[in-house]
């Protein structure tokens, strides 16, 4: 969607236009939810975060500036900030970090579920800075330059974090590679 159109919709939503808000919501909420879910590991937390980001956007105090960034990138940034806040709070309270796995898999897909859990665990064990870059690049297909803009870092730093993260994952998930499976067998 063109940024001018989004700006119009946002303005209308801020004036109470439900259809405009819902149109923005439909355009953005799924990738934002996925990102929040992968960072927090909990659907309920991810939904709270996405809701807060949309409602924050409607407030007059919202920092969104269409001249500086696209709405999608701004919302990703808002989700990221909220998610890390949520995780810090959780660490302070109980230290419980669930492994985000979608339990829709039927039992016949046990192996797949196990692999999903292993992937989630391996990504979770990366440093935060590598985690977010990897999730945005791998799962949200966000261009590296956009990730750099979102995180406020140099493009080179994004590439380096992604490279280090992927290298660590290759080690952590070696058993799940075709060659690793053969070794296991």
């Amino acid at each position, binding site marked *: 969607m063109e940024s001018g159109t989004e700006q119009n919709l946002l303005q209308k939503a801020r004036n109470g236009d439900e259809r405009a808000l*819902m149109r923005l*919501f439909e355009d953005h909420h799924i990738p934002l939810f996925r990102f929040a879910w*992968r960072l927090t590991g909990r*659907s309920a937390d991810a939904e709270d975060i996405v*809701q807060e980001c949309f409602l924050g956007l409607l407030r007059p105090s919202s920092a969104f500036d269409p001249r500086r960034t696209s709405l999608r990138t701004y919302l990703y940034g808002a989700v990221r900030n909220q998610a890390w806040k949520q995780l810090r709070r959780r660490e302070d309270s109980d230290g419980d970090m669930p492994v985000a796995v979608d339990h829709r898999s039927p039992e016949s897909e*046990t192996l797949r579920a196990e692999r*999903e859990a292993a992937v989630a665990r391996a990504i979770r064990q990366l440093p935060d800075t590598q985690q977010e870059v990897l999730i945005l690049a*791998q799962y949200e297909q966000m261009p590296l330059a956009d990730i750099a803009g979102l995180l406020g870092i140099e493009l080179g730093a994004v590439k380096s974090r992604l490279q280090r993260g992927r290298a660590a*994952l290759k080690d952590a998930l070696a058993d799940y*590679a075709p060659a690793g499976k053969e070794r296991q067998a």
Partner: protein
Amino acid sequence: MNDKELDAILNTWEAPNPSPALREAVREGLPHAPQRHGSRWLAVAAAIFVTGILSMGFIPTGHAQLADHPGGGSFFDGFAQNISERHLRFALWLHSLFGEAPQQGPRLYIDNVKSKAAVEKFGEGTGVHYYLPAQNIYVLTLPGPNGQALKPAGTVNGSLVVFTWQGKSYHIDAREQLTDDGEQPVYVLSYADFRKLHS
């Protein structure tokens, strides 16, 4: 492992979809449109005006009331009270039509559609204890020790217990009949000090 193989493994980690409640929650967070407020106040103003006109037509009624209560104030007191009460009733009626009373407590969605059916909450603190009287459903969590929740993980049917825990599938063949009434849910608790509870 090469990059292609890593991508294939990473891409097995799929995210679920958000629940329909998220859409509803965002919709309900929308600030009220100024024009909606305007139309509401316009309706109230028009109602007061119309009631005033209607009340004027009831001057003889007001007079009759005065006659019924000889000791009860002047004609204009009765007239004013008459109009005032009608305004109040009309305003209450209007409020019931246009007003949005703040809704407290849980909201119920059935098949993704918001329902007006009652949801009664029992108990205090964390955990779920809801009763849906219209559906005759009692919904609950099963709290374990130290506030850890028992999680639904699978089923038991006859002598076979099947559940999934942290991505692994478990089957326990009890070799004796465990249930008579078909499939029932089983719950799992991960608790390191479980033995101490039973020692």
